[in-house]
């Protein structure tokens, strides 16, 4: 069984030229739960097959009970943004739909840079799934692979 997430169809105020004049932007935004030793947080994140890491806002770290004081650090950059510092920690992540629920321990990065939504990238998340982005159906489908370490 796999997780199936219909894309979020976000309305735009003009016809999108690159989508043949549609008035929506389909985006693979999915609910994800992140937990440390404290209270878990449920939020929407964006599946991003081009992101090397899975990244959350640093504000969430303290909230979920993750101490970043001695955390290993790295530098990350986006397509249109400059380098930012990322601090890494192991957390519990959970993806689910109405049929399935997958929970695992993975390394994610936390950044103090403005991050409107978490990025669910390769390390910590997509590495454990075979992910199919059905462009025609506008559905993302995730099936656990042999690397999946969770329950």
């Amino acid at each position, binding site marked *: 069984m796999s997780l199936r997430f*219909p894309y979020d169809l*976000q*309305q*735009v*105020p*003009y016809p999108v030229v690159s989508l043949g004049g549609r008035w929506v*932007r389909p*985006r693979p935004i999915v*609910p994800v*739960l992140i*937990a440390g030793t404290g*209270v*878990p*947080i*449920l*939020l*929407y994140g*964006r599946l991003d097959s081009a992101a090397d890491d899975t990244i959350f*806002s640093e*504000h*969430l770290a303290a*909230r979920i009970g993750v101490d970043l004081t001695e955390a290993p650090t790295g530098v990350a950059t*986006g*397509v*249109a943004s400059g380098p930012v510092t990322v601090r890494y920690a192991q957390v519990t992540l*959970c993806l*689910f*739909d*109405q049929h399935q*629920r997958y929970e695992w321990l993975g390394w994610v990065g936390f950044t103090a840079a*403005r991050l*409107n*939504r978490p990025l669910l990238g390769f390390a910590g998340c997509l590495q454990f799934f075979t992910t199919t982005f059905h462009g025609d159906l506008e559905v993302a489908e995730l099936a656990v692979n042999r690397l999946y370490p969770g329950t």
Partner: protein
Amino acid sequence: MNQNGHRLDYALHMENRRNFPRDELNRFIGKHIAFSFDGSRIVASGEDLRELEANLVAAGIDPSRVVFDYVDPPDLVIL
């Protein structure tokens, strides 16, 4: 989903989330928001996660019983 005894009905949440009135959502463009577990209401908002959480707590709402989201500015392309 069941965390700390709180249950999220995924199907109900997503159904309500998809049918959430666009006009209502547009009031929160560029803001971080918190949906009720059933996806039918936006229970708090903020300029960033810190402010959102503070507003939740001030309203007596447990931050572990909402779903955090962000309302993208509709005219922005996300890269």
